[in-house]
């Protein structure tokens, strides 16, 4: 038996609905017999009548309503059909959910699920990674699970946490990533990064789908005699600077990989922190690989070149290792 990243997300929600009557799911097409554009809630409406609810095409209102419900003691999970459409809910997420605890001392335990990232042929409006925008503003926890196990345990933790969580699930991993079984215990605590592979020549910091590109590069470099340590951030906010610094202390070299646009964002934040706090640990200039600074192209030929991939990452890694 094996379970996919997508199934893990579905199972986490099933467990949450089962174990906690405060949980409900809200979003476009999540209910009925349909179960969401990606089937992440397939079967749940039937299993939990009245608790998996279709909404109108109203991202602002669905998040607003989730905020209200959370204030009244519920634990809503909002599914955005695609992360890209959360731009129309951004005001409620940043300015309402994100500020609420600071302003009133009352936290807002909502979880907003964002199907993120590129897949072939999806184009500019169905491929975006928005973690950097949500992480920039205060008050939100931004999760970017990269493994089936994390997809499961982190979603459960997201709903358990009293604060608003933006949970970025990667669409490319939905079917491509499989595990033997779901974890029976919780994973690492929120905010803790994970050493996905040990090494001593180079640290690759990645998250979400890019973790797997990073691991592939590590394999490739291993054949060339380099030992690459790969750090999976797991959450981009909070960012586990300590684990990254410890890794860079071991390797002296840092390459940071993210799938979102190149200006600002997670990779810039990682490099800034490492150079501010661990400058002396570095033996070479830290580098990063991001997507290109254009909208995400539809055509597979262009898309493959737009996002970071094992080749572009490996090239950068080799240059870095040569320095």
């Amino acid at each position: 038996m094996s379970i996919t990243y997508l199934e893990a997300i579905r199972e986490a929600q099933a467990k949450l609905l089962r174990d906690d009557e405060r949980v409900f799911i809200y979003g476009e097409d999540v209910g009925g017999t349909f179960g969401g554009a990606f089937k992440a809630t397939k079967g749940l409406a039937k299993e939990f009548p009245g608790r998996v609810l279709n909404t109108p095409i109203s991202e602002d209102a669905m998040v607003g309503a989730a905020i209200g419900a959370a204030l009244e003691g519920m634990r809503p999970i909002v599914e955005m059909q695609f992360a890209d459409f959360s731009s129309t809910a951004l005001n409620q997420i940043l300015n309402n959910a994100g500020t609420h605890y600071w302003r009133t001392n009352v936290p807002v335990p909502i979880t907003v699920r964002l199907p993120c990232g590129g897949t072939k042929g999806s184009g500019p409006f169905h491929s975006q990674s928005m973690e950097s925008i949500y992480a920039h503003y205060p008050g939100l926890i931004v999760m970017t699970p990269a493994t089936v196990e994390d997809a499961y345990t982190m979603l459960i933790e997201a709903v358990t946490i009293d604060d608003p969580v933006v949970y970025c699930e990667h669409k490319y991993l939905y079917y491509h990533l499989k595990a033997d079984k779901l974890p029976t215990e919780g994973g690492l605590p929120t905010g803790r990064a994970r050493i996905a592979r040990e090494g001593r020549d180079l640290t690759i910091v990645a998250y979400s789908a890019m973790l797997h590109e990073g691991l592939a590069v590590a394999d490739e470099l291993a054949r060339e005699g380099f030992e690459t340590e790969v750090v999976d951030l797991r959450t981009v906010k909070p960012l586990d600077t300590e684990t990254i610094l410890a890794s860079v202390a071991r390797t002296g070299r840092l390459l940071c990989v993210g799938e979102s646009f190149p200006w600002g964002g997670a990779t810039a934040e990682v490099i800034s922190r490492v150079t501010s706090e661990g400058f002396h640990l570095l033996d070479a200039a830290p580098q990063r690989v991001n997507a290109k600074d254009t909208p995400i192209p539809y055509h597979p030929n262009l898309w493959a070149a737009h996002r970071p991939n094992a080749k572009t990452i490996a090239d950068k890694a080799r240059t870095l290792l040569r320095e």
Partner: protein
Amino acid sequence: MLQTAPRRKKSTASRAAPHERFLEAFRWMLLARTLEDKLVSLYRGGLITGGVYVGRGQEAVSVACGLFLQKGDIFAPLIRDQAGRSAFGEPLVDVTRTYLGSRQGPMRGRDGNIHRGRPRDNQLAMISHLGAMVSVTVGVLLAKRFKREKNFVGLSCIGEGGMQTGSFHEGMNLAAVEQVPLVVVATNNHYAYSTPNDREFACHDLVDRAIGYGFEGYTIDGNDLTNCLDVIGGAVKRARAGRPPQLVVASILRLSGHGEHDDASYVTDEMKRQPFARDCLKVAEQMIVDLNLVDPETLREWREDAAAQVDQAIATAQKEAAPEADQEDWCAVSTRRIADQIE
């Protein structure tokens, strides 16, 4: 002295005889006006930082919004709702502490003026972005239904300007889809900041929006307290009884600047001569006098009482310490373990 602490018992207003209800409402209006006049003079004297936003001229509509809500109901006031906030149970010190930046106010100096609230006491804390609080109110009502509470309603306020936001539209439509017991009270005070109605919307009457959402729609003359109480009271009752969501559109003129920094010189003389430009507080008082509902002596006592309460609330807040940066918990999330990881 009027009870200004959060009311945790059922309001008497909904069951009171009409003229008692009228008088209770009038006293809240008077209190709000007295408070806001005082805030304005503090502002003019340089004692308040930031803006001061008042509900002058809109007290009749606003008080009716707060007055019919009971324990378990939810209120989402906006910037001109001092009368309603007080009637709903907001203590005066919440207002003065917030405006004067006391560390002990509900916002602890973190937010100011009208962005205050006590979500735990069912009074939502508005964000500035207009329209955003409608769907939040819907969500609270949804949660109450999930929790199998009974007999609750929510009331969300909006200006005619805020009705043009996308957020408002989505919130209204969602309320209708979810068939939650919501009352939306929209006050058309003929301006959004400096912008007159003709650059805000082009329909004949904003109440015509009701049918398009599946709301029931009513209009009121915001000068006329009786009318405000009847119609908003009726809307609250209908929502509570399970009728569709209710939209009430009031017509009035804002009798102040947008904020106290604004001299409102753009308000035309013609506008000031319109029937809706009367001062609802004066109209209500005239009615009290004309119908001899209470004697002048009592009126004078009420006035003094309001002034005393306001003075006390201000004195209290003024004595209190301001927040200090080095004692502040600079953390926007509540989960301690996670907070510690966010520098």
